């Protein structure tokens, strides 16, 4: 379980999770495989967008993967789980895209399980009793702070993320 733990700089609180079996994945953008799960380590290889990889382990924001003959660490956000390539990535029809990019090996029986649909929501009638129930579970800020402190959660200074360049001019949300 701990065989991927990197001594240098790896803090005890970094969780290491090695998957029992290698899982298939697809590279989402051109990126590098590093020898260690940090960007200052040496680069083992480059992997192109669309490449298939086997995911061997996870640590923080990094995945240990094998791509062809190379093995190394790649950023978690550069890979999607599941085989099937990129399919219709970026197309508007997400339902279709989901179909083409699904991994057949992971199809499982879901009989008896039912999702919500448009009609359920459209036909819904206001339920004040349930709403009152929800209100009763409300937590106060003081309770939330005490709850966080119990497990040693402390606030961190993290800067906001800028929108990617490709998006900046096209989002109607940020110009409103």
């Amino acid at each position, binding site marked *: 379980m701990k065989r991927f733990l990197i001594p240098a700089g790896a*803090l005890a*609180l970094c*969780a290491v999770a090695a998957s029992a079996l290698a*899982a298939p994945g697809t590279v*989402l*953008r051109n990126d590098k495989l590093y020898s260690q799960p*940090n*960007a200052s380590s040496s680069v083992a290889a480059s992997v192109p967008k669309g490449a298939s990889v086997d995911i061997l382990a996870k640590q923080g*924001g990094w995945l240990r993967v094998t791509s062809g003959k190379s093995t190394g660490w790649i950023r*978690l*956000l550069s*890979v*999607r*789980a599941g085989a099937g390539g990129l399919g219709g*990535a*970026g197309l508007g029809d*997400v*339902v279709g*895209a*989901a*179909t083409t*990019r699904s991994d057949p090996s*992971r199809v499982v029986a*879901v009989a008896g*399980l*039912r*999702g*919500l*649909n*448009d009609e*359920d929501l*459209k*036909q819904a*009638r*206001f*339920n*004040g009793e*349930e*709403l009152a129930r*929800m*209100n009763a*579970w409300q*937590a106060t800020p003081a309770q*939330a702070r005490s*709850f966080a402190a119990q*497990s040693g*959660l*402390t*606030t*961190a200074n*993290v800067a*906001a*993320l*800028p929108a*990617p360049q*490709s998006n900046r001019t096209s*989002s*109607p*949300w940020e110009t*409103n």
Partner: protein
Amino acid sequence: MKIKWMVLAVVLVSFSGVASGLDFGKLLEERVKQELNKDRKTQPEQTSPAPDAAQNTAAPSPPAKQKIDARQLGFALFGDYSPEEETRIGRQIAGDLLGAVPLVRDDKLQRYVNLVGNWVALQSSRKDVTWRFGVLDTDDINAFAAPGGYIFVTRGLYQRLNNEAELAGVLAHEIAHVTLKHHLKVLKQSSLIGALGQAAGNKVKDSDQVVQNLIGNGAEIMARGLDKNAEFEADRVGIVLAARAGYDPWGLPEVLQDLAGLPAKDSRTSLLYKTHPHPADRLAELGEAVGGRLDAVHGKDLPGRLYRIR
């Protein structure tokens, strides 16, 4: 110009018929009054106030010199909600959603989710929101936000979570929708288009129908979804909120990884995929925004504290 007045007339007439049934009628009526009064102040030559147009249910002959164009009216109606108005809208949507799906009957679970959610929400810039969280009793895999701080996660999604950081990430994405007022913006746009369309088509006979078109049926706003850029933005803001709360920022991406590997054509995710970009696209978009920016962030994922549903 004619159409503009028709819009106003249609809106005003509609309120008179539904005042008792819907709080929105009054709420919007107030907005129209405010807009009319604001307009009067800019016209000092008009010494005696005209009869209040908002109370004139016949409305087709408003004071001739007032200038309100349709766009201005739309922004007046749906532009700047007060926190109270926002809460009233959210309360209506949340109550409707709960009419479709009840809450899981597990006090400890619901209390736990409220504590995690409140802690994450405390890191947001909005201090004028009372946050309420609930787990919905459905196999569906999804999460919802309504204006005013009403946040929902389904049991189907909750049961897939592996640690508290993943829960924090999911809730943070929904909290971001509220802090960024995404649904209010949709409401504003769709309401204006609906009102204009009806005025232009001159088909309005039933005043209730007009208000329904303004606010939608039941919780259908949850089924219509948001612009994909709003989802990408909520992902970006969400992982930062979770990280600021001290959690591992990779909770939300891990949930997206899990969803990316789910079989397609699963009825549990059909609504999610109808209203959100594919998880793979969300991961790719997040990757572009994050790059190495979170490399120095080391948060907690707390697998042991995640409450397990019996």
